[in-house]
């Protein structure tokens, strides 16, 4: 009987997700022509060897690492802090949460456009502000100088990610029973102790989710890079944009698949943490 219900979802999932994943693994071991012209020609790990000698790939890898570090270091504490701040039973507090969430509902196409104006070297708000406070030397060509490009793009991603992390923590805070906090009051716990001993451990599951999701999102970064650099500015390349141009501009499917597989391998560990975490909670219930 379960198969009656699973037939449709499972079939669709196999066709569009599971099978393609296996195919990509296979493609990464074949030469460029073999996919285009149909005759399978296996070239072993040549694509991967080529990747690690390719400076553009190494740059994309390094940039993606910057994305990853920033996506954990900034949105997690900021999202937690803002969630705890807004989590009050005061009239109107929901309006604050709603407004703060708005960036999450915008598309990267929209976000990228707006931030390109903020970063505009001459009349963007960022440089104008820096000049106004007398710090002209800090006003850079944010999207024109290869040294600052990646950081500028990451900040845009972080701006959108913080509201998401806030929502995950707001959901997590709902699971923190108020009686527990009140009990700690009676024991005379200070605010710092309360935060360390009660809130942090109880938010552990929410934190695991938020960190895992942020890491996975950082590795999926594509839209911002595509919209804000039009993939022309290759200094800001990330793995997904390099994969896209290898596959769809240069038609090098084997090489593009190899890049995807590298991303897959990096993500795999975090996927396992997430799956493990989900199933562990299961047992407790």
């Amino acid at each position, binding site marked *: 009987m379960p198969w009656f219900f699973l037939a449709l979802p*499972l079939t*669709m999932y196999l066709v569009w997700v599971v099978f*393609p*994943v296996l195919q990509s693994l296979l493609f990464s071991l074949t030469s460029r022509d073999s996919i285009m012209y149909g005759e399978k020609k296996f070239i072993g790990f040549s694509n991967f060897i080529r990747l690690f000698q390719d400076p553009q790939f190494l740059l994309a890898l390094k940039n993606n690492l910057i994305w990853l570090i920033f996506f954990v270091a900034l949105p997690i504490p900021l999202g937690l802090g803002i969630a705890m701040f807004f989590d009050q039973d005061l009239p109107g507090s929901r309006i604050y949460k709603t407004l703060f969430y708005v*960036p999450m509902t915008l598309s990267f*196409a929209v976000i990228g456009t707006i931030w390109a104006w903020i970063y505009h070297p001459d009349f963007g708000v960022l440089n104008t502000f820096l000049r106004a406070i007398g710090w002209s030397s800090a006003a850079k060509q944010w999207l024109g100088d290869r040294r600052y490009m990646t950081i500028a793009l990451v900040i845009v991603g972080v701006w959108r990610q913080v509201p998401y992390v806030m*929502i995950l923590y707001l*959901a997590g805070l709902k699971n923190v029973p108020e009686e527990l906090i009140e009990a700690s009051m009676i024991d005379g716990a200070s605010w710092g102790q309360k935060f360390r001993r009660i809130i942090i451990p109880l938010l552990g599951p929410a934190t695991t989710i938020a960190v895992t999701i942020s890491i996975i999102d950082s590795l999926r970064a594509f839209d911002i890079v595509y919209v804000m650099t*039009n993939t022309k500015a290759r200094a800001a390349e990330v793995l997904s944009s390099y994969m896209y141009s290898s596959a769809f501009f240069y038609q090098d499917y084997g090489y593009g698949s190899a890049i995807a597989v590298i991303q897959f391998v990096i993500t795999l560990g975090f996927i396992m943490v997430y799956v493990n975490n989900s199933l562990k*909670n299961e047992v407790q219930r």
Partner: protein
Amino acid sequence: MKYSDKAMGMKPMSIKQRKLLQLLFYFFGTLIVLLWLIPIFIAIFTSAKSMDEIMVSKMMWAPPHQWIFSNYAKAWKNVGIAHYVMNSFIVTIPSVIGSLLIASLGAFALAFYSFKANKPILITFIAGMLIPFQMLMIPVYRFSDATGLINTYTGIILFHIAFQLGFCTFFLRNFMKQIPFSLIEAPRIDGAGDFFIYRKIVLPLSISSMAALAVLEFTWIWNDLLWSLILLQQDKLKTVTLGLANMQGEFITNYNMVAAGSIIASIPPLIVFLLFQRYFISGLTVGAEKA
């Protein structure tokens, strides 16, 4: 009441102190929100300026001297936003409904039947929702090309549904797990069929979590850029995100048109969020949080 004296971990407060704390909350709350939404204010300002003002004043952050709301009508009609928005609806609505309904079938199976493959299938769905989408790009493109599904709405809708099944199934299954088993068992003893139980008991009980899920799915699919880029390569088919991304190149100087178009494009997901936000956080608590 978090700002009660107990919860703040202080000695009992006077009413005056409590009022002060509340005032501080509203002050800093407003400040945080205003600062965070600066980019959105800039977009609104820019959308209502004339091109002359943008080029002459060079202050993209300042409110317009004169608010020109006809820019919106112009973007809607002349720049083709109306057409792109319509395309986005054509893609998004069936995709959201389809993924919710089809996932609810799978979720029902995984939540209420114990069978050997239950856990492996669940893990496949969870892993699939986290996979880098680059792993799917080339095979899905080639599959769509070979089957003639490329450049059709059917093709991208079917793909969106399939790709979102991982998250939706996982999310709904977690919710359904919390439904007391007796609600399922009782009608079964009375001789009700399983599909009847799914249709008449489980589905109605899952409405709130499906509403939360609908908000997320609508936002994700509406805002999708990559798959439209790959699967819809004709301009007349393009969704609004893709249309806007391309406008950046074409109308490079028409900042006000791009801004007005961006704001129009952001309204549908915003409305969906506002309509369903009541369910949103509580729905997530059950779904993603139990994750």
